[in-house]
C-alpha cells in the first residue's frame, strides 16, 4: 500500500460558524481507490469537513488539491465536475419520485435540440446498468423511493453519484439507520465500489464497521485532524483513544 496515490488533498482548510470553529486548519489526504474512513465524536467536525469537500459549504481559508492540481470546489456543481459526489446521510432522495428520476435528478439525460426533452428510455437503460454494476437488488426502477428499503435507498443514492461520474464518493453514516442485514448490504456495496477503483470517503461512528471495511482511518477531534492510520497498523484501542482526544505519540 506504500504506493497508494493521493487523489484529493485538503490544505489548511478552515471553517467557522460564528463563534464555533468547526474545522481547524485541516490538511487531509484521501487515497485513490481506497476506503478512507473519517471518524470522530459528535461535533468533531466530520460533517463540516465533508461538506467543504462536496461543495455544500465554502471554506473560510485553505485550499484543495485534486489529482495533484490545486483547485477550488465552488459549490456542489463544481464538486461534480471534479468527480466528487456526496451521498448525504438522509440521501437527498425525493420520496415521491421513482428510482430512475431520483438517480438522474439534477443531471437528467435529454434528447433533441436545446436539452429540453427528457430521454426517458436512455435514463431507464442506464439506471438498470448502473444498478446491476453495483449488484443492487431493486426489482422495479419505476418504484417510488418511498417504498424502498434503507439498503435499496443507499444503492439509489450511490447509483446517482456514479451516474454523475463520481470518482470520489462521500458516504455520510451510510448504515446509521439500518438493520443488520441491510448494513451488510451497504458494506458489500462499498466493497464493490472499491473493487471498481472508486475512492470512498466514509464517515462513521461505528469503529468495528470501520475496521471491517476501511483502508485508512482518519480521526477528528474538536475540529482538528489528529491523524491518519492504515487499518492494518492501527488498533481499535488506539483509534478510540484518538477519538477521545488523546493525540497519538
Amino acid at each position, binding site marked *: 500500500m506504500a504506493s497508494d496515490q493521493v487523489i484529493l488533498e485538503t490544505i489548511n482548510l478552515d471553517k467557522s460558524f460564528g463563534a464555533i470553529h468547526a474545522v481547524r486548519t485541516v490538511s487531509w489526504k484521501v487515497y485513490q481507490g481506497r476506503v478512507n474512513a473519517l471518524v470522530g465524536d459528535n461535533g468533531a467536525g466530520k460533517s463540516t469537513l465533508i461538506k467543504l469537500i462536496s461543495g*455544500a459549504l465554502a471554506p473560510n481559508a485553505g485550499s484543495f488539491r485534486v489529482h495533484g492540481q490545486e483547485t477550488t470546489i465552488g459549490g*456542489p*456543481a463544481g464538486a*461534480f465536475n471534479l468527480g466528487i459526489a*456526496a451521498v*448525504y446521510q*438522509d*440521501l*437527498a*432522495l*425525493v*420520496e*415521491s*419520485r421513482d428510482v430512475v*428520476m431520483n438517480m*438522474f*435528478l*439534477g*443531471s*437528467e439525460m*435529454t434528447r433533441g435540440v436545446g*436539452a*429540453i*426533452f*427528457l430521454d*426517458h428510455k436512455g435514463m431507464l437503460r442506464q439506471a438498470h446498468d448502473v444498478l446491476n454494476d453495483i449488484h443492487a437488488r431493486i426489482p422495479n426502477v419505476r418504484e417510488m423511493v*418511498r417504498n424502498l428499503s434503507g439498503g435499496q435507498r443507499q444503492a439509489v443514492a450511490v447509483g*446517482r453519484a456514479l451516474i454523475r461520474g463520481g470518482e470520489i464518493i462521500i458516504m455520510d453514516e451510510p448504515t446509521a439507520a439500518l438493520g443488520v442485514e441491510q448494513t451488510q448490504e451497504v458494506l458489500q456495496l462499498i466493497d464493490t465500489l472499491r473493487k471498481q477503483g472508486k475512492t470512498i470517503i466514509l464517515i462513521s461512528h461505528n469503529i468495528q464497521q470501520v475496521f471491517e471495511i476501511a483502508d485508512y482511518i482518519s480521526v477528528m477531534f474538536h475540529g482538528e485532524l489528529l491523524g491518519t492510520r492504515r487499518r492494518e497498523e492501527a488498533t481499535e484501542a488506539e483509534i478510540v483513544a484518538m477519538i477521545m482526544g488523546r493525540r497519538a505519540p
Partner: protein
Amino acid sequence: MLERITQGEVALSGRRRAQLLFLMDNGIYVVTILLFVLFAFLAPHFFTPRNLVNILISASLAGIVTAGYTVAILAGQIDTSTQGVLAIATVATALLFQEAGFSLPLTVILALTAGIAAGLFNGVIVVNGKIVAFVATLATQGVMLAIALFLSGGQTITITRAGLQEAVFVRMFGIPSSVWIMFFCYLLGWIMLTQTKLGAHIYATGADYRAARLSGVPVDRVIRIALVISALTAALTAILVTARSKQSALFGLAIAGSVDFVTALTAVLLGGFSLFGGVGRIERNLVAVLFLTILGNGLQLMNVPTGIVLVVRGFALVSAVILSVLRARVA
C-alpha cells in the same frame, strides 16, 4: 406541518393501499361522469348544445388559470395572488384596447407582459425574500389590486370598440377559441411536466426542496418559472374574461363567477394534488375543473338559489381538502 397532517397513518396492505390510491386519484373521472348524467336527467336545458358550449366556455376560463396554478402548486408554491394578476391584466386589457386605442395583438402582448411582470415580482419576494409563497403572494396580491384600482380610477371600463370579443371568441368547429386555448394550455402543461427536464425539476422542487437543491436542481429558478407560469395563465384568463364581458372588472372573480383562487384550489385538490407540492397529474385538474363547472351550471339551471350554489361549492372545497389529507395519509 406535513408531519402533523400525515399522523395517524393508515395501516393498509400494499395491495389495498394501491387500490385506495387508484380510487382517490381517478375517482374524479367517475364522479364527473355521474354528475353529468345526473344533470342531463334532472336539470332542464342542461343537455343542449348551447348549454354544453356554455359549460365549455366557463370551464375554459377557470381551466386556463388552474393549469398555471397547478404548475405553481407542483413546485410547492401556493400562489394566492391570482386575483391580483387577474385584476391588473383585465384593467390593462381594457385601458390599452379601449382608452389607448392599441391594436389587438399589442394589447394582448402587453397584458400578458403585465402578467409575467407580476409573476417575476412574486418570484423576487418568494425567492430573494425567502418568504413562503402562500404569505408572500397574499401580500403581493394586495399590491396588485391597489395598482389595478389606481390605473382604473376605481371605475369599470366598458369596451365599446369592436374587435376584441369577436376575435377572442372565434369559433372553430363550433367551439369557441377560449376552449381550444384551454386544451392547448393543458397539452403544453402535460408535455412540460412529463417530458421535459423543467417538469422533472418542478416535481422534485415541490416534493423535496432540500433534496432537489442538494442534487443540483436550480430550485430558485424553478420556483421563479413556476410563479411566472401561474401569473401568465392568470393574465391570459383575464384577457378572455375581459373580452367575453366587454368590460374590465377590478376584481377578477366578480365577473367570471367561477374564476378565482378558491376554484383553482378546489380543482387542484380534487385532481389529487398535494397542497405540499410534488404530487399530481395535470390532466386530472382539467377534469376537476369540468366537474366544478358542471356542478355550478347544473344547479343554476335547476334554479337553486345562488347562495346555496356557493355553499355547495364551499363544501366541494372542504371535501377536496379532506381528500387531499387522506391521500397524504394513505400514500
